[in-house]
């Protein structure tokens, strides 16, 4: 078992990285470890556990800003925010159960480092859109910071964007600042029953083009809808297309009615109110349809132009024999395939070649993740830039080497 360092202060963390740099010893960077089985497997000799750097250091509800250590559990942050009727707008998923672990283990550092966002991403933006600033230690063993604690800031390069989604390969964050937003007064979901994929695609596109500020647009084929814990969904016996509306109560009621009359003319409709809405969207967010205990199939997360989502999904299901559903108005496909050797990566990536986009292997046995490109292989020009960026932060490759791409 590799030795772990568990610094309790940013200075200790800097010393640990400086030591690794001097000795050229690669480090596996981790928080709670809830996403350890995502990405390419690590072969680092030592582990740098940042989970002791935890706690909210600043929360000013009226400034819409919160700072916390990377090891702060998301659950703590969400609870603190809820007390002031606020939330993390990007709706970070809890992929613990999907990855065979416990629920509720995720941290702020993990959510930002992996740029994971839930269904509201299509309206509110991704975690990268709410990440305002950070302090970190680079792969040179140097403490540095970027960004700030105000929403509007263009002072210098926006390195927060690079850190968000860098999977710990550029720097080890010691403090993060995010923008928070008021939680909606009311949440409802319009359900449209019985769409085939093509009709679902058309309905989702139409919903996205309305002025009703929809904050979630998804489609579950009949087989997956049946597994929902929300009875209106599981009991439908048909495919379900879902459209979420959030905001002040009178507005939500008005917009739901408008959506039902515009999109529900030909199909049966239903409405989920607050608690059922929350439960339904957290199932989609956490990929619950593929998270049942014992389900070991490979899982892909595929981002495509939203309009092509339904068609690509059909092609993927036909080509892989797997199961899939759509989120982000069609722009996000969650696919599971029973392919324990190669995760059918060639079929998956071929399916998105024409519309464009990217596919990430989220769950797969370790040997598969070592052998198959987990992240979308970049074009050569982009690959060169990614390498240059990596070298600028971590020239000796001590921070999570190979976690994203073999050569980074």
């Amino acid at each position: 078992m590799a030795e772990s360092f568990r610094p309790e202060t940013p200075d200790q963390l800097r010393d640990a990285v400086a030591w690794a740099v001097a000795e050229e010893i690669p480090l596996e960077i981790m928080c709670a470890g809830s996403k350890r089985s995502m990405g390419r497997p690590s072969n680092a000799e030592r582990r740098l556990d940042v989970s002791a750097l935890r706690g909210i250091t600043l929360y000013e509800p009226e400034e819409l800003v919160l700072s916390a250590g990377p090891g702060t559990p998301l659950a703590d942050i969400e609870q603190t925010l809820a007390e002031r009727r606020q939330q993390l707008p990007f709706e970070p998923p809890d992929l613990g159960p999907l990855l065979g672990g416990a629920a509720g283990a995720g941290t702020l550092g993990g959510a930002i480092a992996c740029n994971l966002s839930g269904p509201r991403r299509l309206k509110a933006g991704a975690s990268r859109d709410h990440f305002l600033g950070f302090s970190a230690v680079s792969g040179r063993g140097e403490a540095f910071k970027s960004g700030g604690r105000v929403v509007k800031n263009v002072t210098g390069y926006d390195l927060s964007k690079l850190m968000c989604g860098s999977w710990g390969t550029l720097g080890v964050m010691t403090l993060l600042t995010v923008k928070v937003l008021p939680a909606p007064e009311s949440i409802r979901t319009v359900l449209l029953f019985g769409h085939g994929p093509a009709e679902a695609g058309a309905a989702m596109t139409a919903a996205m083009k309305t002025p009703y500020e929809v904050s979630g647009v998804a489609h579950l084929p009949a087989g997956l809808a049946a597994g929902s814990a929300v009875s209106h969904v599981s009991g439908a016996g048909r495919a379900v297309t879902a459209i979420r509306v959030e905001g002040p109560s009178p507005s939500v009621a008005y917009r739901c009615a408008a959506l039902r009359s515009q999109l529900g003319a030909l199909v049966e409709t239903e409405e989920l109110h607050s608690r059922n809405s929350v439960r339904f969207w957290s199932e989609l967010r956490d990929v619950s349809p593929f998270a049942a205990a014992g389900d070991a199939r490979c899982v892909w997360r595929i981002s495509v132009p939203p309009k092509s989502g339904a068609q690509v999904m059909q092609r993927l299901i036909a080509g892989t024999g797997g199961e899939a559903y759509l989120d982000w108005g069609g722009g996000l496909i969650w696919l599971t395939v029973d392919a324990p050797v190669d995760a059918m990566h060639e079929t998956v990536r071929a399916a998105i070649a024409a519309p464009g986009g990217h596919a990430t292997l989220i769950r797969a046995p370790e040997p598969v993740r070592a052998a198959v490109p987990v992240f979308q292989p970049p074009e050569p020009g982009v690959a060169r830039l990614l390498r240059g960026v990596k070298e600028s932060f971590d020239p000796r490759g001590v921070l999570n080497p190979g976690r994203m791409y073999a050569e980074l």
Partner: protein
Amino acid sequence: MKMPEPDAAVIARKDEIAAALRGIVPGEGVIVNDDELRPYESDGLTAYRQPPLIVVLPETTAQVSRILRYCHDNGVKVVPRGAGTSLSGGALPLRDGIVLGLGKFNRILDVDYDNRCAVVQPGVTNLAISNAVGEEGFYYAPDPSSQIACTIGGNIAENSGGVHCLKYGLTTNNVLGLELVLIDGEIVRIGGPHLDAEGYDLLGLLTGSEGLLGVVTEVTVRILPKPETARALLVGFPSSEDAGACVAGVIGAGIIPGGMEMMDRPAIHAAEDFVHAGYPLDVEALLIVELDGPESEVDYLIGRVEEIAKANNAVGLRISQSEEERVRFWAGRKAAFPAVGRISPDYYCMDGTIPRGRLPEVLSRMAALSQQYGLRVANVFHAGDGNLHPLILYDANEPGELEKAEEFGADILRLCVEVGGVLTGEHGVGVEKRDLMPAMFTEADLQQQQRVKCAFDPKSLLNPGKVFPTLHRCAELGRVHIHRGQQRFPDIPRF
């Protein structure tokens, strides 16, 4: 303001460089005469002027690629330029460098309503995008006051904002993809109509990189369906504290308005004298709060904001009853810069951001500075997100006044940083705030940023002299400093 020492050898090669560029861009696209270069000598920060060596106006990405490769191979510096409205000197030319103008990249290439995006060339103006999609009921949300003139390429470079950014985000939150030409001529494409980046978020890095990393030749932006309706409240307050408390109250109540703008007394008076928008003149602060969305939502929220305003000592509260009246409420705010321009021979526009709660303190310290420097200041404020635009009034014909205004401005920005804010909220660092960067960043912070620059432009030929106070060579920045001896760090807990 010291710019990098011009390279006399490059200046001496002007004819040769011009001939090479003519081989790439035929006809009138290469400008060499002093008279014709003059219009390019400054951008919106007119205090700084420097005619470039040559201006080149390519029309295709292939030409941009060949120009950059030529400049790279021949050690010629390049300053990209959109409409030249930058307020931070981002497009200020260099005596020994070419200006690469993107004005001819002015076509909207594709509008894809189903994917809610538009693909445009970088020289398209911000407003032209909204105009192009308006008939279908869509718009492009970020709306800088300069939107008639400024280009989307410039918006990307500066990560520009506007009054609607509080609810809809800055440029960076509304861009989906780019085509970029690197200094060595390589063309790369990043993003597209799909969401999120593969690999590192280069799109996010490039947005706001002030023309230092590459030349943007195509942009994919998010377009949004227009809200069904919008209405505004116009509210006066007896003090900036009251106005600030009202803003905090609105956000604390869970309301994120489409726009929330504040003006102080001098700005109110200047704007009212100029456009007669009907602003109250006996108040210390004026707030415009705009709500947008479905009518039922707007009516409901207007009522709630009205209550909050009244609880914070509002005077002369008005609610727009028609589209015409809403536009009139905004007219004064939108004309605030030219309005201030009328009451002073010159003005200098600052752009710091502060934590909103510190506003009263910052305003009162600014008033003290105003006394100290003997220069008037008017304030317009993106109140929702803490972005301040103090306008310092001065007369450039009075010897020493420009310098005094600049020092006053620098003190204001240092004050912003001191209270937890930043040097620039939306106008960029450029040359203007370059030397103030150490007020916010340590040398290690700045060096890390410069190393990223090295990954894109190792010879530092793209827009040098901007953003970074000290130019380091990439080789020097690349060195790893090892601190042996401290390695064993016994105090770090391990298991």
